[in-house]
């Protein structure tokens, strides 16, 4: 008997929403629905990540397709009564674009979703990732059927080659070519590894993909295994991604139960099985040779290539390592055909790409867009622009291996080549938006700190090079920059690029080099004028209370953790610069109407009117009127 309901509530149960209390909401909804005797009519479905993480916890009501965000437990009784019983959707919980008044009830009206093209994430929010039947119903495992009944392994490889699919892990190597090399090797057994060791800060595409549609990855792995002649596969996942690991485990055991993994699959005589391996928190393990070492139980350090893993990989056998997003593309290519797939995207970059859009942006979340879309569409249409009316400064793509793309390149298309030309890279797909309040030197320092921590230490260029970069960057942000530092950074960066063994080292100077290319003046301001234009670098700024604006309310004074503020009620407060730790608490505390606390940098610091003693707050009445 098919279970049928009048209304289905697609509750997002991705990590972001779970952290926001999605499980409690689900429990509350189920209780409330039962209390009103609607359990036969309304059911709650846990889906994977919906993508609009900034609105979480969220749900979509089917069949009306209404989107509700920022749910709380208190909303539930009202919601169930009004919408699910009486059929009156609640406007208060719907999405309103920032700086507009009109609410957008339907999911399909929200710009965040409108401009996306879902190929890999075709099932997100529609299926319950813990139910294999849901996946099958969405034409899941059709591709397996097709390859087993009508395609030889070579035909599969050819199809993938024609589709133009390139690796989604960052470097963009053509997937079909990689498979071909492995399939031509004589040595057996062959291995397949799905790489889900997603370590870039600010990127969570792979995690969401597995959380929302694990079977798509399994199906892709199966086809890859079939194509290269491998019966044993591993999926290497970050142990920090517990929810994704659990969903993958469930999915694998369901597939085994159905005989879609195991021996003699669908009576074809082909065997295939997948084992999950967890990493334990080492960024370098995302590099393919390190990853192999990690699975072997060896020290996870990269090794020299060639031989490439496709020739000699896991236990010396031919091994194909694909990113999970790459693999999730494969079933679609097989079912809908390479020609259909290669119709999406640009000349050299086909298909779609998932990005995680984070940072100083209104609509934080996970998006899938066709290759070739320009950055402006992504940031302003899908992302909804920069919050608080701030100015867009740059977008960082490709994580610690990528670079910053400034505002004047916003109209450049997003594909492998043009990002590279701009000094960045596709990377795994993190897209971090920065506004005028972000200091590029500080951000570069952050990335170098990260790669410096994560460098495995095997080769000098990367280990010591990152150390030297960090030292100079720290010096600059501390206001101790010297003449010639910029040139030194450039020279050192290029050397590290040339001399490092693996991808980690070869790309680690990118954040510095690309910001030097576009924001050189900011580096120079730090060094020559000891000024941080974005007002971020602590040693270069001062917090200052404007005596003309301060109302002497004591708020900042009471909350200052360093007791650095002098003053009395109705007397102008003064910050003792010797005591101030520049934590910014006073700026947060100062009421927005007053906004007497400001940050200043460089020469402006000398021009400030310094009070020598505490004076009463100036009479405000007249001033307010004239202002």
């Amino acid at each position, binding site marked *: 008997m098919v279970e049928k309901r009048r209304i289905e509530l697609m509750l997002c149960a991705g990590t972001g929403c779970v952290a*926001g209390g999605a499980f409690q909401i689900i429990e509350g909804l189920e209780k409330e629905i039962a209390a009103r005797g609607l359990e036969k009519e309304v059911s709650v479905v846990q889906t994977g990540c919906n993508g609009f993480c900034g609105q979480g916890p969220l749900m979509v009501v089917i069949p009306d397709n209404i989107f509700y965000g920022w749910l709380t437990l208190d909303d539930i009784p009202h919601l169930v009564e009004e919408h699910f019983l009486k059929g009156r959707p609640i406007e208060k919980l719907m999405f309103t674009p920032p700086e507009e008044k009109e609410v957008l009830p339907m999911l399909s009206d929200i710009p965040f979703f409108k401009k996306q093209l879902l190929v890999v994430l075709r099932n997100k929010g529609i299926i319950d990732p813990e139910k294999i039947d849901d996946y099958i119903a969405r034409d899941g495992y059709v591709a397996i059927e097709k390859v087993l009944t009508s395609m030889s392994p070579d035909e599969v490889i050819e199809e993938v080659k024609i589709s133009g699919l390139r690796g989604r892990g960052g470097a963009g190597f053509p997937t079909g070519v990689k498979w071909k090399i492995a399939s031509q090797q004589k040595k057996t057994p062959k291995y397949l590894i799905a790489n889900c060791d997603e370590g870039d*800060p600010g990127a969570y595409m792979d995690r969401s993909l597995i959380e929302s549609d694990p079977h798509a990855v399994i199906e892709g792995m199966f086809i890859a295994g079939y194509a290269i002649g491998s019966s044993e596969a591993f999926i290497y996942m970050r142990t*920090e991604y517990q929810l994704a690991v659990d969903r993958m485990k469930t999915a694998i055991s369901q597939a085994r139960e159905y005989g879609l993994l195991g021996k003699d699959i669908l009576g074809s005589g082909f065997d295939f099985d997948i084992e999950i391996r967890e990493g334990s928190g080492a960024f370098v393990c995302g590099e393919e040779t390190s990853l192999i070492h990690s699975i072997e*139980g060896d*020290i996870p350090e990269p090794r020299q290539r*060639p031989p490439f893993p496709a020739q000699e990989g896991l236990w010396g056998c031919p091994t194909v390592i694909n990113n999970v997003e790459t693999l999730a593309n494969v079933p679609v290519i097989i079912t809908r055909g390479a020609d259909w797939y290669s119709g999406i995207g640009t000349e050299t970059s086909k298909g779609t790409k998932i990005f995680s859009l984070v*940072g100083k942006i209104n609509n934080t979340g996970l998006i899938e867009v066709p290759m070739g879309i320009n950055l402006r569409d992504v940031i302003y249409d899908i992302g909804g622009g920069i919050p608080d009316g701030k100015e867009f400064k740059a977008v960082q793509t490709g994580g610690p291996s990528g670079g910053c793309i400034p505002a004047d390149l916003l109209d450049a298309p997003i594909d492998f080549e043009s990002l590279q030309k701009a000094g960045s890279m596709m990377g795994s797909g993190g897209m971090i938006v920065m506004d005028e309040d972000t200091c590029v030197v500080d951000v570069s320092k952050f990335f170098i700190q990260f790669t410096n921590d994560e460098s495995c230490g095997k080769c000098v260029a990367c280990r010591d090079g990152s150390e030297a970069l960090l030292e100079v960057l720290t010096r600059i942000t501390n206001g101790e920059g010297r003449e010639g530092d910029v040139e030194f950074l450039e020279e050192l960066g290029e050397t590290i690029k040339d001399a490092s063994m693996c991808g980690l080292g070869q790309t680690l100077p990118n954040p510095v080099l690309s910001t030097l290319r576009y924001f050189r003046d900011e580096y120079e301001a730090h060094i020559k004028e000891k000024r941080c234009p974005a007002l971020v670098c602590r040693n270069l700024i001062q917090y200052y209370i404007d005596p003309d604006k301060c109302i002497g309310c004591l708020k900042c004074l009471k909350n200052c953790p360093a007791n650095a503020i002098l003053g009395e009620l109705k007397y102008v407060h003064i910050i003792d610069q010797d005591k101030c730790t520049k934590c910014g608490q006073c700026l947060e505390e100062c009421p927005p109407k007053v906004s007497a606390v400001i940050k200043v940098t460089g020469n402006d610091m000398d021009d400030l009117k310094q009070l020598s003693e505490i004076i009463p707050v100036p009479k405000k009445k007249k001033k307010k009127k004239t202002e």
Partner: protein
Amino acid sequence: MSLNLEDRKKIGSALVVGGGIGGMQAALDLAESGIKVYMVDNKSSIGGVMSQLDKTFPTNDCAMCTMAPRLVEIGRHKDIEKITLSEVESITGQPGNFTVKIKKQPRYVDEEKCTGCGACVSNCPTRNTVQLQEREVITLEPQYEETVINILQKHKDRKGPLMPILQDVNEVYNYFPEKILKYISQETGYPLTHINRIATFYSAFSLKPIGKHVINVCMGTACYVRGAELLLEKFVDVLGVGIDETTEDMLFTLKSVRCIGCCGLAPVATIGDDVYGKLQSKDIPDIIAKYQKKEQ
């Protein structure tokens, strides 16, 4: 770069003359690419001049830190053969096919003939007696034994079992007691040095006991630009411990972690399995107090 195997067929072997830092790196790179390497040095050991330096120009790097990993690596690399106390006498042939004559100095023990019988050790009259260590047999306390044996049993037939074993042990104990590592080494045959290197490589592993609640402050980019650093400072302030340290009552261990993938909620910290999104530093004391209260 061509991937055609025919183009990069490995022929013969390579000879590296001089075992200084340059020679060592060259030998390692060659050997890693699958070429048999002979390494000739006229001293009784490799290492060259760098081993006599404290710091190196221009970066003031510690010389030993650069060298030591390579020394170890060469020592155990199966494709590198060291020919010490030797000198090149002549080279004939042409690129791709050289014949090299090497003169090897005599030494105190002829490696070729030595059978490792140990008679020289027992008969040595000097005070520099070679001490051969008795290998101690490690037995675990009953409360550890069962769990660890179960874990070892579970992964016995796996290929590359070390990582899963360590992960399971870590799951149970939250850190690696020294004795357990020794026991794993004894049972699995992996050298203790190897296990130690792995145990210290990954950030999820620790050799020191850690607190009941692990506080992870996310330092991912999204959190960083939204002020995660201030949160971390506040935690340091409230707990009175530094990063990667544990409070005296063994309740909290403070860590900073790379992205945990909740960028939509930035800045984020996790305490155990609880996630605190859009965290503000002023909320931190209350949160900590909540956990402390639970323990009383």
